[in-house]
C-alpha cells in the first residue's frame, strides 16, 4: 500500500497513456507481490528493495503490536469493566432490605464475636438516592428559585462523593489498621448508615423550626448517633488493637456526624435564610436573622 504513492507518479511521468490493465493492478493495495514487483521500476534496485522490506516489517510489527494491545484491552475490559461482577450484590429480598434498614439504627455492644457486615449494594444505593431526593425536596419546600439542574448535580455529587469517598478512606485506614472488613462491606455499612441522615432531613423539612436548632440537634444526636454507634460497633468487632480501634472509630464517627451537620447548615440553613430574606416583613425578621447568626456562631 505504501508503494502506491511512489509508483503512481513514476508511471505517470513515463507515459501519458494510461494502460487500463495496469490501472487495475495499481489500485489493488492488498497485493504485496504487485507492490514488490514495482520496486525495481524506480531504478534504484536493491536499495529500494531493502527499503520496501524495512517498511513492510515496520507495518507488520506495528499491526501486531496494535492487535496485541487491543486484545489485552478487550480482555481487561471484559474482566474488570463488566458490570455483571456487581450482580451478586443486588440479589436481595424485600424483607432482608427492611431488616437491614431497621438494624442500622440498633447498635450492638462490640464483643469478641464479629458483627455481621452485609455485602449488598441495593439497599445502600436506594438510601443514597433517597437522600438526594430529600435534599431536592428540602430546597423545593423552601420555595426559593434556584437552578434545578445545578441543584440536582450538586445533590448527586455531594451524596455520592461522601459515600464513595468515605468508603475509600475507611478502606485505606482499615488496610493500615489491619481491620477485617472489605470495601463492599464498608460501602454497605456507610450506605445503610445514611438512613439516619434521611430521617433527620425529612423530619427537619416537614417540621420547620425557623429560629431554633434545638430540634435539629436532638434529631442529630438520636438518629445520627444511633447509626454512628452501629457502624462503630461493627468496625470495632473486626479490629484488634486499641489504637487501631480508636483511629477507625473516631474517623468514621467524626465524618458521619459532621456530614449531617454539613447537610443541615450548608443546605437547610442557607435555604432558611434565603426564604426568610425573600419573604415579606423584612423589617421584623431582620433582628431575628442577626440573632440567629450570633447564636450559630456561638454554638460553632
Amino acid at each position, binding site marked *: 500500500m505504501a508503494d502506491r504513492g511512489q509508483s503512481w507518479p513514476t508511471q505517470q511521468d513515463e507515459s501519458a497513456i494510461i494502460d487500463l490493465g495496469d490501472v487495475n493492478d495499481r489500485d489493488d493495495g492488498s497485493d504485496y507481490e504487485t507492490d514488490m514487483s514495482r520496486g525495481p521500476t524506480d531504478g534504484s534496485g536493491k536499495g529500494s528493495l531493502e527499503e520496501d522490506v524495512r517498511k513492510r516489517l515496520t507495518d507488520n510489527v506495528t499491526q501486531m503490536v496494535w492487535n496485541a494491545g487491543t486484545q489485552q484491552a478487550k480482555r481487561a475490559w471484559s474482566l474488570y469493566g463488566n*458490570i455483571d461482577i*456487581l*450482580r451478586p*450484590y*443486588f*440479589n*436481595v*429480598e*424485600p424483607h432482608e*432490605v427492611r431488616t437491614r434498614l431497621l438494624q442500622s439504627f440498633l447498635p450492638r455492644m462490640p464483643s469478641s464475636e464479629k458483627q455481621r457486615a452485609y455485602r449488598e449494594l*441495593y439497599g445502600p*444505593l*436506594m438510601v443514597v*438516592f*433517597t437522600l438526594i*431526593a430529600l435534599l*431536592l*425536596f428540602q430546597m*423545593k*419546600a423552601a*420555595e426559593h428559585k434556584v437552578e*434545578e*439542574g445545578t441543584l*440536582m448535580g450538586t445533590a448527586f455529587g455531594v451524596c455520592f462523593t461522601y459515600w464513595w469517598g468515605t468508603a475509600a478512606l475507611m478502606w485505606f485506614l482499615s488496610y493500615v489498621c489491619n481491620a477485617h472488613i472489605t470495601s463492599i462491606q464498608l460501602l454497605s455499612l456507610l450506605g445503610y448508615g445514611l438512613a439516619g441522615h434521611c430521617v433527620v432531613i425529612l423530619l427537619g423539612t416537614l417540621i420547620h423550626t425557623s429560629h431554633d436548632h434545638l430540634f435539629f440537634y436532638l434529631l442529630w444526636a438520636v438518629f445520627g448517633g444511633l447509626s454512628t454507634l452501629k457502624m462503630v460497633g461493627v468496625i470495632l468487632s473486626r479490629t484488634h488493637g486499641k489504637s487501631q480501634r480508636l483511629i477507625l472509630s473516631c474517623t468514621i464517627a467524626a465524618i458521619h456526624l459532621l456530614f449531617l451537620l454539613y447537610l443541615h447548615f450548608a443546605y437547610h440553613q442557607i435555604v432558611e435564610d434565603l426564604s426568610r430574606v425573600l419573604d415579606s416583613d423584612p423589617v421584623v425578621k431582620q433582628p431575628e436573622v442577626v440573632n440567629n447568626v450570633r447564636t450559630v456562631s456561638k454554638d460553632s
Partner: protein
Amino acid sequence: MSGEFGGNDGFYSSSDSYEDEPPLLEELGINFDHITQKTLAVLNPFKAAEHDMMQDTDLAGPLVFCLAFGGSLMLCGKLQFGYIYGIGVVGCMAMYFLLNMMSLTGVSVGCVVSVLGYCLLPMVILSSSAVLLSLKGMIGIVLTVLAVVWCSFSSSKLFVSALSMENQQPLVAYPCGLVYGVFALLTVF
C-alpha cells in the same frame, strides 16, 4: 427502493410496488392498538399485565406523554421541558443499571424508557389538575402522593411481568417511586 416511479422496468411497476409498501405508521413502528393496550394497563394498575406486552418497545406513547406533561406544566406557568428531559434521562439510566443488576435476563434501554414513559400518565393527570387547583394544600398533597404511588405501582408491575421478578416488586417499585417523586416535585413546586 423496491420500485421506481415512472420506470418502465419489467420487474416492478409503480402501482404494484406502491400498494405493496406497508403503511407509514407501521414502518415507523407506531401501533395504535399496542399504545392503547399499554395505556389501559397503566390506567388500571390492578389488572395483570401480559408478559410480552412490553417486548414491543415503542417510544411514540412515552414521547406523547412527556410532551403532554411539559405542556400541562406550561399551562401552569412553568417551562420545564429541559428538566423533564434531564430527569427522564437520569432516571432511565439509573433504572436500566438497576434492573440489569437485579434481573436474570437483563433489560434493554428501550424497554426501560418505554415503561417509564407510559407510566408517566398519572403524573400528566396530576399536572393537568394543577391548572385548576393548588397542589400545596392538603388535597394537593394527597393527590400527589396518590399519583406517585400509582406511577410506581404501574411501572413496577410492568417491569416484573416483563422480567419475571414477581417476588421483588417492592424493590423495583421503590426506585420508580423516587423517579416519579422528583417529577412530582417539578409539578408541585
